[in-house]
């Protein structure tokens, strides 16, 4: 019976953990696990009468109040440090329980209990001290760099040997002497934890903190073996499993073995070697760069403005600069401009597993925009701009390109494959690995050095007022109009493709006028109506009807598509997604498989859209880059008017095109 109840509670806990597989259910899973723990607590109280109720209640209350205060005050950037601190508290509880059980001697302990007790004592104490060091490092209360004592490994090994000796000696001495040995064991284990963790540097913290997660679980399970409590064993084992998985995942993501991280001696030499080679250069270029900063900012802003796909690559530097809000704001602005934005999350970016996810979630970013490494890497090829915010090693191409560096073989985010790279890092110094980042020197990389928070804000600002600069480089609008008008004048068949942009520009009357003029010139004009063009079913039909276009000139998708092949000019007016060939040519876009109007099959395509940005779907339109396409960007009504006047002149018809009051009708 008791076993059944225990089994039930363990099942509840497992169920709670199972819920963690989906983001939306995780919160409920957390409560389920808490409920399981509460049940376990109630069960223990029910089965065993508590003698000193007062002390127990006060202790429970003090702990809960402190726990609440700390957890409530913590900002998301402090999470790793807080979690490490809580691990430490768990370690304290574990070694104290083991100690008291071992020493109070009111009932005989079996050998199994004793062994578990000594192990629990040891692991609990080292979890405690190790966590405190980790927490201090993560909170920046301690230097993050690895601190290596003379003969560190030797110290560590002798400490371990002492632990083994004292631990085993405690089985063979009187209980009086054993108590002293247990105290010695606790102190030794604590010093072991300190020695062990001080030489682990900031960027390896995800591994350390995951490892401590596992040891905290083991300590709890061992506690359970001392007092022969199945619940404790099961709960502890689950945590140990979780910590082990996370440790493994973190190691894999860094391409290192646990031994390399925890016993870094052998790896020390190559670590510093590449650093010295060009150590003088970064300081110099830092100065040089900051003077040209404004120019670089403008260039970066121009790139972003032209981009269709932007991927942000956040690193721990973003957390340090507290720039996540600014990043989110910039991303929102870019998305407002029709640019597709994603975030590339490297598994070891930050200081604990999933750290970046939490920070970005705090900044209000939807988690479906956060893309994991394996998933995003193929996409960098199609990315116009990769914006790196405080990340270095995780985007360092040297990991793939050079042998023998500490990061060689480490999986990285392939930001180097993006067309442009905008790097908002504090400086050009190498990351934690000490390996120079070859990405910084690339031609398509723009370095925006300095505080990321400020850099991103400046970038947002430049996006606003840099507008007039970008249009100058292209052909003059007069040339384009002439080219388009000539194409139309020479055409026999023209198909007009209206989209919602035409409705927005209120260009339907001018278009109807243009069509009438073309008809007058002997050109056959039809309209192609996509079923979802506009904002409601049949929207385009209504709008064109308003401009007195006859409805038998309005052709539906199936009807018009076979005609494009023999069409001389497809005139696109404020339409994008409905003529985007990517729908047929590319897999996995939001419009893949959507039926489109085959404008690209026409001999010439004239696009009168406001800009080159993707439509609602966010998918860039390859039609714009088609060599047969003439882009007339800007207000559709103005473009149409320009076409009318140009046509009138070339054909020699005196036409009242630009006035537009008097429509020619037929």
């Amino acid at each position, binding site marked *: 019976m008791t076993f059944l109840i225990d089994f039930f509670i363990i099942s509840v806990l*497992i169920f709670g953990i199972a819920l963690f597989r989906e983001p939306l259910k995780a919160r409920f899973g957390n409560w389920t696990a808490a409920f399981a723990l509460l049940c376990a607590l109630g069960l223990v109280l029910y089965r065993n009468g508590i003698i000193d109720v007062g002390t127990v209640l006060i202790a429970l209350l003090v*702990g809960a109040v402190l726990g609440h205060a700390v957890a409530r005050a913590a900002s998301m950037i402090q999470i790793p440090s807080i979690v490490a601190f809580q691990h430490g508290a768990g370690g304290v509880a574990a070694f104290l*329980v083991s100690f008291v059980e071992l020493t109070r001697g009111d009932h005989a302990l079996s050998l199994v209990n004793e062994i578990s007790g000594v192990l629990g004592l040891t692991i609990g104490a080292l979890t405690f001290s190790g966590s405190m060091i980790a927490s201090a490092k993560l909170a920046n209360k301690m230097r993050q760099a690895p601190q290596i004592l003379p003969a560190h490994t030797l110290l560590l090994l002798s400490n371990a040997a002492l632990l083994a000796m004292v631990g085993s000696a405690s089985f063979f001495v009187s209980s009086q002497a054993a108590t002293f040995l247990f105290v010695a064991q606790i102190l030794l284990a604590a010093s072991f934890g300190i020695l062990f963790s001080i030489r682990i540097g900031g960027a390896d913290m995800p591994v350390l903190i995951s490892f401590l997660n596992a040891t905290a679980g083991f300590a709890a399970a061992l506690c359970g073996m001392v007092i022969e409590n199945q619940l404790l064993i099961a709960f502890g084992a689950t945590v140990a499993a979780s910590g082990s998985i996370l440790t493994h995942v973190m190691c894999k993501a860094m391409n290192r073995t646990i031994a390399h991280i925890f016993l870094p001696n052998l790896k020390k030499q190559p670590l510093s070697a590449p650093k010295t080679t060009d150590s003088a250069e970064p300081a110099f270029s830092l100065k040089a760069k900051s003077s040209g900063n404004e120019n670089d900012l403008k260039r970066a802003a121009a790139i972003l403005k032209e981009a269709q796909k932007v991927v942000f690559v956040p690193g721990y530097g973003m957390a340090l600069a507290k720039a996540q809000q600014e990043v989110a704001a910039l991303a929102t602005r870019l998305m407002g401009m029709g640019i597709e934005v994603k975030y590339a999350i490297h598994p070891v970016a930050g200081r604990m597993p999933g750290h970046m996810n939490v920070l970005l979630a705090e900044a209000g970013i939807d988690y479906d925009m956060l893309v994991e490494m394996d998933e995003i890497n193929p996409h960098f090829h199609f990315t116009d701009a990769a914006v790196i915010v405080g990340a270095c090693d995780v985007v360092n191409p040297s990991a793939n390109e050079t042998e023998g560096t500490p990061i060689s073989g480490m999986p990285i985010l392939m930001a180097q494959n993006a067309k442009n790279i905008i790097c908002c890092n504090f400086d050009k110094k190498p990351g934690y690995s000490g390996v120079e980042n070859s990405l910084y020197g690339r031609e398509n990389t723009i370095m925006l050095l300095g505080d990321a928070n400020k850099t991103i804000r400046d970038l947002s600002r430049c996006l606003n007022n840099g507008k007039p600069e970008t249009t100058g480089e292209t052909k003059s609008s007069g040339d384009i109009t002439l080219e388009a008008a000539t194409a139309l004048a020479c055409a026999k068949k023209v198909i007009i493709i209206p989209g919602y942009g035409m409705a927005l520009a209120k260009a339907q009357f001018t278009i109807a006028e243009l069509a009438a003029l073309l008809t007058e010139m002997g050109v056959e004009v039809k309209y192609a109506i996509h079923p979802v063009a506009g904002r409601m079913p049949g929207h385009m039909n209504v709008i064109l009807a308003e401009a007195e276009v006859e409805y038998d000139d309005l052709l539906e998708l199936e009807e018009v598509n076979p005609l494009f092949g023999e069409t001389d000019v497809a005139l696109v007016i404020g339409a994008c997604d409905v003529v985007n060939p990517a729908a047929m040519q590319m897999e996995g876009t939001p419009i893949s498989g959507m039926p489109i109007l085959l404008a690209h099959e026409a001999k010439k395509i004239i696009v009168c859209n406001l800009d080159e940005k993707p439509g609602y779907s966010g998918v860039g339109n390859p039609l714009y880059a088609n060599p047969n396409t003439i882009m007339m960007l800007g207000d559709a009504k103005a473009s149409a008017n320009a076409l009318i006047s140009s046509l009138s002149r070339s054909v020699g018809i005196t036409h009242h095109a630009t006035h537009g009051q008097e429509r020619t009708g037929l």
Partner: protein
Amino acid sequence: MTNLLLMVGVFLASFGVGYMLISKVPTLLHTPLMSMTNAISAVTILGALLLFAVPTNTAHTVLGAIAITAASFNVYGGFYITDRMLGLFREKGSDSN
């Protein structure tokens, strides 16, 4: 001996099932996962409570009380901060804040 086997069995079974399930947790949720399991590891609070089920001397009472406080801090804070964190994750289209 049967006791030992039972305990080892419970440990291995829980470890195995936990391992299977947790392997499937998306990396998106790794921080909350660690934070929650951190809270669960404070299950040592059960052991700390049991210290008070039998008469003890003052030294042990003090140590036991410290253990309960530490574990209670860990368990309460752990679950609470996990909940706060998970509250921040939102799906596309859901209302902000």
